[in-house]
């Protein structure tokens, strides 16, 4: 199936701003799914609320557009009901880690087989550019006119600490790598998390004098490097890209099968 067969063409051109990184994530996701050859009926995409969460409307899967922050809780209900389906959950940084932080750490803890994508534009895009828990100190936002003092989560660390068994990061500049990592994440059995650094030129870029989409993408290029690369070793301030965690651990739905076995044999 060609990548385009996975989208709902009638909703294109989509509603994201020109140069919004979320479109590139959509693009990469399509490639990942295409390369895995998964049928459209075998994927359930669950999203919350935010610019990022719009992604579900554009894709021709089973799509569940839920409440702000709650996508993973809905997805848990779907997945436990139908473990054979592939659950993909794209979220914004606010969606996943502000209001949705609790469901995030608990889904990771359970190691339930869901592929979570955090489209990290370091801002609440949908509501007009307020700071998020991933904005980081020093950033300007509509609710941080004197520069943000909130420290940022390290998504990679917190996902790992909470129990995620696949944890990775890429950016919209590295579209090909991104597609590959998303593919790996979908293949992984257990809770997988991909943080995607994505540009919001409309709010983050403009407010923070980072210029438009092009300049922001350049920054993604300059400020990141593959983990383990020489660049990273030499410049510790550089942000790592790649797969940080990839390990085996009991998956929740499989463990639930064990409960059923114990209950029915008793």
């Amino acid at each position: 199936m060609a990548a385009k067969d996975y989208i709902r063409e009638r909703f294109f051109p989509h509603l994201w701003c020109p140069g919004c990184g979320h479109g590139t994530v959509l693009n990469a996701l399509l490639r990942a799914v295409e390369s895995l050859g998964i049928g459209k009926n075998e994927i359930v995409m669950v999203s919350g609320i935010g610019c990022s969460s719009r992604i579900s409307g554009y894709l021709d899967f089973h799509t569940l557009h839920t409440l702000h922050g709650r996508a993973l809780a809905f997805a848990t209900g779907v997945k436990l009901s139908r473990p054979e389906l592939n659950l993909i959950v794209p979220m914004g940084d606010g969606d996943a880690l502000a209001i949705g932080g609790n469901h995030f750490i608990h889904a990771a803890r359970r190691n339930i087989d869901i592929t979570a994508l955090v489209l990290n534009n370091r801002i609440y895009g949908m509501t007009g550019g307020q700071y998020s828990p991933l904005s980081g100190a020093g950033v300007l936002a509509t609710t941080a006119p004197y520069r943000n003092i909130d420290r940022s989560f390290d998504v990679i660390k917190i996902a790992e600490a909470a129990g995620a068994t696949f944890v990775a990061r890429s950016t919209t500049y590295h579209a090909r790598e991104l597609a590959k990592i998303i593919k790996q994440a979908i293949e992984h059995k257990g809770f997988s998390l991909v943080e995607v650094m994505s540009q919001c030129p409309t709010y983050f870029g403009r407010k923070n004098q980072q210029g438009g989409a092009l300049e922001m993408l350049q920054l993604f290029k300059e400020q990141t490097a593959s983990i383990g690369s020489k660049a990273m070793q030499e410049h510790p301030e550089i942000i790592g890209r790649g797969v940080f965690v990839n390990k085996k651990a009991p998956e929740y739905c499989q463990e639930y099968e064990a409960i059923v076995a114990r209950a029915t044999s008793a």
Partner: protein
Amino acid sequence: MAGVNKTVAGVNKFVQGNEACVEGALYAGLTFFAGYPITPSSEIAELLSVRLPKNRCCFIQMEDEIASICAIIGASLAGNKVMTATSGPGFSLMQEGLGYGIMAEVPCVIVNVMRGGPSTGLPTGPSQGDVNQARWGTHGDHAIVALTASNHQDIFHITVEAFNIAETYRTPVVLLFDEVLGHMRERIVVPKPGELPLVDRLKTEVKQGVDYHPYLPREDGRLPMSDFGGVHRYNVTGLFHDMWGFPTNSPQVVHGLLRHLTDKIENNINAITHYKEHCLDDAEVVMISYGSSARSALHVVANRRSRGERIGLLELQTLWPFPAELVREKCAQAKRVVVVEMNMGQILGAVKQAVAKPDRVTLANRIDGQFITPTDIRNILRLIQGRGV
């Protein structure tokens, strides 16, 4: 989990009200439960954690009540009959999710075993304080179905009915019990399979490749569903949406959807209304009550009738949509209508609006965290009649 629901049926059991609810849910075909413990509802989760896995069905304890209601909605869309159970504080937290269930038309059952509120209130005290919250707790215009019962056999039946209504109208249904019922024990008889009619999930007959409309009601008003993972891919959202489930702000569609959501409940009020009546035929004093307080009211009726007093009881099992016609009719001949509830008069207003002579309606209640007794009601009746205590 491709669970099959097996209920122990045709059996006498001596159970708590919470267990009667569990038996009813299993009889109705519950296959997925998600919840978070809270007094006085926790036994529902505990019992289901034992029973559901035996049926190869799902039980999951979520991180909180918000996650619980979201999980059951997800599970329902994947083809399960679903339920969650909580009490006041948890029910408050579920309000956003409840509204989502209403908007996305997802069948599900939410049990609220009421305790004393507001706030943490009296965790182990009986109360019927969440009746109006069940009606209006979530934001925006909407209709809701809320049911209750006063004894364990009825709890069993009304729980079955809750699932039937949820499936028939594709809507969340709230079951409002209370601490007295939840924790006391009495006998129930679990009917044999087939004895009670069950409404199964109506699945679409639209074939693969043909355009399926998840949100376009059929001639008979019902909306067949298609499980996630099936051959029809569609969109589910809490935004106003068109007949395929895609967001729209078209005024016509918005208006139509909101009316549909309300009308599907209100136009079927007769089918949704359940009640019992006791000695109403010639009653000059009509008591209206529900849940555990109806037991005390019934005690008074039995007691007074034996002395020849013309007193009767209308016991409501459907609280929302409020059966105004029924109440109006049953109170038509009454010289006095006495609403008995354990709150500050939450259905009182609806009763007053329903009857022809609102002045004749009075409230017999108790709000101190204690179960209202027949003596309380008798004392209030005396006072109402001007006879002092």
